[in-house]
C-alpha cells in the first residue's frame, strides 16, 4: 500500500494519475485500487469529491477508485476509510493507493499503515526554517516537490533534501541519494515523475518483498519545465502596456510642441504683416528653431505634407500600391441627389497640435496606428460576408455552401464541425458518439471528407477563402484541407494535360479487388458545382502523378490557398473547453504549423484566429474580451519568437475574431484592437507594416439573442452589424434571429445576410469608409477602452502572464463573474431588454420553442462510419507506417506538421489523435 498525503493544491491527484498511468504501462497484468479522501463541509454535510476530474488514466479495467468524504469526523482517517482500504486489500489488488489531504494527525497515521509513504509538497513553503515544522518530512519515505516549475524550486529541493537527511539522520549521505524529487505533474512525460515512479515501485518492492519489479526505463534528468514563454519574458504584457503608454506620452508632448510651434509661426506671420516690431522677429525665429528641435523630424514632415495628403483624397481617384501592384480607387461615390460622398473624410484642423495628434493616434485607414482600418480602402467586389455551413455529412454541407454562395463573386466559406470532429474523434456506432455525428456541424474524419466538403470550389482561386472553426485537432484538419487543395490542383493539371483516362486506370489499379472501398460523392451535385475535387477521391495526387510534378503543384497550391483555421487553444482553456491535448503540446503543434507555413511560403492562410468570440459568449464584457484576446495574441507572438521565427514572417498570418454585442464599447472594439496591436508591433517588436495590421473577423453576439420575441433579434443584429461595418471590420457574420432556439433555417439565414447587404449596398452613409472618425465620443471611448485593456495586461502580468493566470484559472473566474453580473442585471430588469424583461407583449412574451430542428439523418451517420471503415481497410498498413513516423517526429522534436501532411493522406482523425495522445499527453480538465 502506498500512502500519499500533502497539502491542498499541491497537485496530488495529477501526480497520482501520472503514477497510475506509468504503473499500467509498466505492468501488463497488475491491478491498482485508489482510495481518495476529501473533507466534508461541516455546515451542509455535503462534499466535493473532485479528484477524478483531474485523472485521465483511471478509466481502465485494471483500476478501481473510490472517493470518500471525511463526513462528521473531519479527520482524513476515520474508521471507514481504514475499512475501505481493507476491502480493496481483501479484493487482492496488487497496489493500493490511499490519497488524503493532510489534515492534522492523520498524516502520520497513514504512514504507519502504509508500506511506503509519499508526501507531496510545493516549493512555496516559505523560509527553510518552515521545513522544521513539517512533521511529514520525519515520516515519509519519499518526498515529491511538485510544481517544480515554480520560482525558487532548485533552492527548495536542496533545502528539503537537507531537512530530510537531518530528520532521517543520514549525515553521511550524498545529496543525490535522498528520495526527494522535483516533479511537474502537469507536464507530459515529466522526467521527475519518471524517477519518482521508479523510486516508489522499487521502495515498495524492497519493503514488501513483493514480486513487483519495474521494467520502466528512466533517465537521470531533472524535471525541467519546457517553457512556452521564456522566464525572462514573462512580463511581456506589462512591457507592451508600458511601451504603448510611452508612445501615448510621446504623442502628447509632440502634440504640445507642434502646437507651440504653430503659435510661434502664426505670431511671426502676423508680425510680418504689421511691418513693425521687426526686432522681435529674429529671436522669435530662433525660438522657433530651437523648439522645432524637440519635434521629431518625421512629425514635422507629417505636418508639412498634410495639405498634400488631403489633396490625394480630394482628387477623383486615389493611387496606392499593394504588393507592387498599383491600385486606383475612386475617391467618391455619387448619391441620387448627385452629392459626391467622399470615401475618406479628413479633419479640417488647422492647428498643428490637433493635426499631429490626429495623425499619431487616428490617421487615415491603412496608415499607422491603423485606428480606422488596416487597408486604405475597402476591397471592391468583396463584401465582408461569410457563408456559414456545417450539418450532416460532407455532401450536405457542400450542397449548402453552393446554395449560400450562389451569385456571390467571392466565396467565403465558414465551416462548423460536429462535436465528434471538434474533439478529434472518429464517427462510431457507440451511441454516445453516434448521436453526435453530423449534428450542429459537419462530420469530417478524413481527407476524402474534406475533398467532398469543398468540392466545386477552387480552393486556390483568389476569390475563395475558407474558415474552419476548430481548435483541439486544428493541425490535423488543416492537413486534410491542404491536401484537398493540392489534389484539386492535381486534378486540374490532369484535365489540362488530357490525362484523365490514364489516371482513372491508375486509380482502378490501386483499388484492384477493393472496388467497393472507393469513396464517392453521395447524391447529385448541387447547382453551380463543376465536379472539381472529386476525380481523386480515394487517392492522392502523388499516387497518380510523377513526384516532381506533384511537388511543384503542391508548392504552388500552398502559396495560393486562402483561409483561416481557428486553432486558438488558449481561449479554449479559458472559455470553451474543446481542448484535447495538453496545452503545451497544442501550442507546440501551432508553432509547427506556423513554421511549416513560413518554410512553404503560405502567405494567405492564417494559422490561427485568435478568438474573443467564445470568451464573450461565455459571459465576458467587451473590455475583458478584448484584453484577454489581445493578451492571447501576444502570447502566441512571444512563443513563436522564442522558437526563433521572424516576426515579419508570422505576424501577417495571425488573425483575430471578435464578438460584437450591443454595449457601447463594441462601437470601438476594432479601433482599439488595431491601435494596441500596431503600437506594440511597431515599437516593441520592431515589426514591419504588414505585421502591424490587425485583421479581424467579427460575428454578431449569439448571447445577445433571446428566446423570447425572437423577431426582435434581427434588430439587435442590425445594430451590431452597423457597429462592425462602421468600424471597418475585415469580415462579418450576422447571426440569424432564430439561433437562440434552433439551428437557423434558410429563411432566417437569408434575412441575416440581408442585414449586411442592406448596410453595405443600400445604406448611403456606409459608402463612406471612415464614418466614426472625428466623433468626440468615439475618440473618448477609444481612449477609455484602450486604457482599460492595458490595465488588464498589468493584472495578467501580476499573475505570471497568460499561462500563469490560466494555472490559477484567473481568466475563467473573471469571465464567470462578469457573466453572473449580466445575468443578475437582466434578472432584476436593471438592464432593460425589450421583450425579455421590459416591453412584454400582451401574452407576456413567452419563450419560443422550436417545432423541429435540423439533425443529421441515419443514412448520413451510417455512411460516415462506413467511409471510415473503408479508409481503414484500404490503407491499413500504410496508415501504421505514417502514424509511427508521426510519433517519431513528436519524440525527436522535428516538425510534426511535416509528418501530419503525410499522415493525413492515409489516416483518420481519430487514429492521428490517439497517436498524438501517446506522445503529447491528453488534456487535464480543471474544476
Amino acid at each position, binding site marked *: 500500500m502506498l500512502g500519499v498525503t500533502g497539502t491542498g493544491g499541491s497537485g496530488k491527484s495529477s501526480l497520482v494519475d501520472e503514477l497510475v498511468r506509468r504503473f499500467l504501462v509498466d505492468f501488463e497484468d497488475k491491478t491498482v485500487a485508489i482510495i481518495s479522501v476529501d473533507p466534508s463541509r461541516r455546515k451542509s454535510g455535503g462534499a466535493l469529491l473532485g479528484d477524478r476530474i483531474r485523472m485521465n488514466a483511471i478509466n481502465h479495467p485494471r483500476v478501481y477508485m473510490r472517493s470518500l468524504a471525511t463526513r462528521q469526523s473531519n479527520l482524513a482517517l476515520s*474508521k471507514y476509510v481504514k475499512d475501505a482500504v481493507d476491502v480493496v486489500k481483501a479484493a487482492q489488488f496488487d497496489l493500493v493507493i490511499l490519497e488524503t489531504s493532510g489534515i492534522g494527525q492523520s498524516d502520520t497515521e497513514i504512514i504507519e499503515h502504509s508500506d511506503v509513504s509519499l508526501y507531496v509538497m510545493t516549493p512555496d513553503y516559505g523560509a527553510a526554517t518552515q521545513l522544521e515544522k513539517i512533521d511529514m518530512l520525519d515520516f515519509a519515505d519519499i518526498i515529491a516537490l511538485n510544481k517544480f516549475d515554480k520560482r525558487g524550486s532548485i533552492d527548495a529541493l536542496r533545502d528539503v533534501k537537507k531537512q530530510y537527511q537531518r530528520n532521517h539522520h543520514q549525515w553521511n549521505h550524498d545529496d543525490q541519494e535522498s528520495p526527494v524529487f522535483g516533479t511537474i505533474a502537469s507536464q507530459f512525460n515529466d522526467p521527475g515523475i519518471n524517477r519518482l515512479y521508479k523510486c516508489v515501485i522499487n521502495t515498495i518492492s524492497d519493503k514488501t518483498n513483493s514480486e513487483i519489479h519495474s521494467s520502466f526505463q528512466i533517465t537521470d534528468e531533472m524535471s525541467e519545465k519546457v517553457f512556452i514563454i521564456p522566464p525572462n519574458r514573462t512580463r511581456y504584457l506589462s512591457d507592451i502596456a508600458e511601451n504603448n503608454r510611452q508612445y501615448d506620452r510621446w504623442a502628447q508632448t509632440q502634440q504640445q510642441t507642434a502646437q507651440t510651434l504653430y503659435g510661434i509661426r502664426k505670431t511671426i506671420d502676423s508680425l510680418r504683416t504689421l511691418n513693425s516690431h521687426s526686432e522681435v522677429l529674429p529671436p522669435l525665429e530662433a525660438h522657433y528653431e530651437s523648439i522645432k528641435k524637440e519635434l521629431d523630424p518625421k512629425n514635422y514632415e507629417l505636418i508639412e505634407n498634410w495639405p498634400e495628403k488631403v489633396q490625394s483624397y480630394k482628387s477623383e481617384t486615389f493611387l496606392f500600391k499593394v504588393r507592387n501592384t498599383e491600385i486606383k480607387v475612386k475617391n467618391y461615390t455619387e448619391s441620387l441627389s448627385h452629392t459626391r460622398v467622399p470615401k475618406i473624410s479628413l479633419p479640417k484642423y488647422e492647428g498643428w497640435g490637433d493635426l499631429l495628434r490626429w495623425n499619431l493616434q487616428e490617421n487615415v485607414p491603412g496608415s499607422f496606428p491603423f485606428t480606422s482600418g488596416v487597408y486604405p480602402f475597402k476591397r471592391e467586389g468583396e463584401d465582408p460576408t461569410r457563408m456559414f455551413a456545417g450539418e450532416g455529412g460532407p455532401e450536405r454541407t457542400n450542397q449548402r455552401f453552393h446554395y449560400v454562395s450562389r451569385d456571390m463573386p467571392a466565396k467565403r466559406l465558414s465551416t462548423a464541425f460536429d462535436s465528434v470532429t471538434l474533439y478529434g474523434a472518429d464517427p462510431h456506432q457507440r451511441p454516445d458518439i453516434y*448521436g453526435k455525428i453530423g449534428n450542429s456541424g459537419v462530420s469530417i474524419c478524413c481527407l476524402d471528407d474534406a475533398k467532398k466538403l469543398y468540392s466545386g470550389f477552387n480552393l486556390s482561386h483568389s476569390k475563395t477563402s475558407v474558415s474552419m472553426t476548430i481548435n483541439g485537432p486544428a493541425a490535423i484538419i488543416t492537413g486534410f484541407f491542404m491536401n484537398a487543395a493540392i489534389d484539386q490542383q492535381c486534378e486540374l493539371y490532369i484535365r489540362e494535360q488530357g490525362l484523365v483516362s490514364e489516371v482513372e486506370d491508375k486509380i482502378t489499379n490501386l483499388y484492384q479487388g477493393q472496388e467497393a472501398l472507393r469513396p464517392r460523392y453521395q447524391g447529385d451535385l448541387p447547382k453551380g458545382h463543376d465536379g472539381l475535387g472529386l476525380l481523386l477521391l480515394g487517392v492522392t495526387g502523388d499516387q497518380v502523378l510523377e513526384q516532381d510534378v506533384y511537388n511543384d503543384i503542391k508548392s504552388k497550391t500552398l502559396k495560393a490557398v486562402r483561409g483561416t483555421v481557428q486553432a486558438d487553444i488558449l481561449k479554449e482553456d479559458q472559455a470553451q473547453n474543446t481542448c484535447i491535448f495538453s496545452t503545451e503540446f497544442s501550442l507546440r503543434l501551432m508553432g509547427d504549423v506556423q513554421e511549416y507555413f513560413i518554410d512553404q511560403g503560405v502567405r494567405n492562410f492564417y494559422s490561427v484566429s485568435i478568438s474573443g468570440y467564445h470568451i464573450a459568449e*461565455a459571459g465576458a464584457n467587451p473590455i475583458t474580451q478584448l484584453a484577454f484576446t489581445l493578451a492571447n495574441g501576444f502570447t502566441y507572438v512571444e512563443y513563436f519568437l522564442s522558437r526563433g521565427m521572424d516576426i515579419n514572417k508570422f505576424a501577417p498570418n495571425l488573425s483575430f475574431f471578435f464578438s460584437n454585442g450591443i454595449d457601447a464599447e463594441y462601437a470601438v472594439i476594432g479601433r482599439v484592437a488595431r491601435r494596441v496591436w500596431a503600437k506594440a508591433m511597431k515599437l516593441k517588436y520592431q515589426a514591419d507594416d504588414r505585421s502591424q495590421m490587425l485583421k479581424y473577423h467579427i460575428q454578431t453576439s449569439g448571447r445577445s439573442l433571446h428566446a423570447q420575441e425572437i423577431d426582435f433579434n434581427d434588430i439587435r443584429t442590425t445594430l451590431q452589424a452597423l457597429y462592425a461595418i462602421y468600424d471597418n471590420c475585415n469580415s462579418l457574420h450576422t447571426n440569424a434571429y432564430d439561433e437562440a432556439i434552433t439551428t437557423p433555417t434558410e429563411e432566417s439565414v437569408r434575412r441575416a445576410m440581408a442585414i449586411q447587404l442592406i448596410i453595405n449596398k443600400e445604406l448611403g452613409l456606409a459608402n463612406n469608409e471612415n464614418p466614426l472618425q472625428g466623433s468626440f465620443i468615439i475618440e473618448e471611448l477609444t481612449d477609455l477602452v484602450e486604457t482599460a485593456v492595458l490595465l488588464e495586461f498589468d493584472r495578467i502580468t501580476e499573475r505570471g502572464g497568460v499561462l500563469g493566470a490560466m494555472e490559477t484559472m484567473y481568466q475563467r473566474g473573471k469571465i464567470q463573474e462578469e*457573466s453572473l453580473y449580466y445575468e443578475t442585471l437582466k434578472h432584476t430588469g436593471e438592464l432593460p431588454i425589450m421583450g425579455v424583461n421590459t416591453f412584454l407583449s400582451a401574452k407576456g412574451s413567452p419563450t419560443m420553442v422550436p417545432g423541429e430542428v435540423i439533425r443529421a439523418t441515419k443514412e448520413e451517420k451510417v455512411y460516415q462510419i462506413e467511409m471510415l471503415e473503408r479508409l481503414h481497410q484500404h490503407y491499413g498498413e500504410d496508415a501504421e507506417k505514417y502514424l509511427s513516423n508521426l510519433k517519431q517526429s513528436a519524440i525527436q522534436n522535428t516538425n510534426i506538421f511535416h509528418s501530419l501532411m503525410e499522415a493525413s493522406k492515409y489516416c483518420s482523425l481519430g487514429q492521428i489523435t490517439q497517436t498524438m495522445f501517446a506522445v503529447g499527453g491528453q488534456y487535464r480538465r480543471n474544476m
Partner: protein
Amino acid sequence: MSTGTPAPYKPKNHIRIVTAASLFDGHDAAINIMRRIIQSTGVEVIHLGHDRSVQEIVNCAIQEDVQAIAITSYQGGHLEFFKYMYDLLEERGASNIKIFGGGGGTILPNELRELHEYGICRIYTPDDGRSMGLQGMINDLVAQSDRPTGKMLTNSLNGTIESLQNKDQQTIARIISASENFPDESAEMLQQVKDLVKSSPRHRCWA
C-alpha cells in the same frame, strides 16, 4: 419567475451523486452551478467535469456506489446519450442508479417525453428552472435520490467473497458503502473482510 427560494432539502441518507457534462461537450457552466447547489444540499458530489463518455460515467457511478447521475447535454445526441447510459447501467446490474439531466432548449419537449418514458428519471427544462427555481430543481433531484446504499449487504459476506476476490467493482463498492453507512450492522461482515486480508500474503490488515 419563482416566488422565493425554497429551503434546501434535508437528506435522510448519505447521498452521493456523480455530475458531468456529456461526451464532446464543453458546456460546463450549468453543471458547475448545479453541482454546487447539490453539494450545499448535503450531498457528496463526485464531479467529472466536461466531455465524459457514458462508459466513464457509468464506471465511476458503480465504483463510487452513487444513488444518482446528473448530466448536462448541450451538444445534441442527447437521446442516444441518455438511453445508452440507462442501458449500460442496466447491463451492469446497476439500474437502481437514477439518471437526471438538463440541456436547456436543446432538448425538445417530445424528446423529453421520450427520455422520461425510456426510464430517465427526470430531464429538467428552462421552464422548470423558472417555476421551481434552481434550489427547487435540486431539492426534487436530491429527494428522488434519497435512499440508503450498502444496506442489503449488512449481514455477511457469504457468497460475495468470490466476487470480491474477483474484484467485482459493484461488490467492492457496496461493501465500502456498508462500512460507511451501516458500520454496526455490517460489523460481522467487515470482520470477515479483515480475516481475508490477514490470510493474504500481499497486504497487512489495517484496523
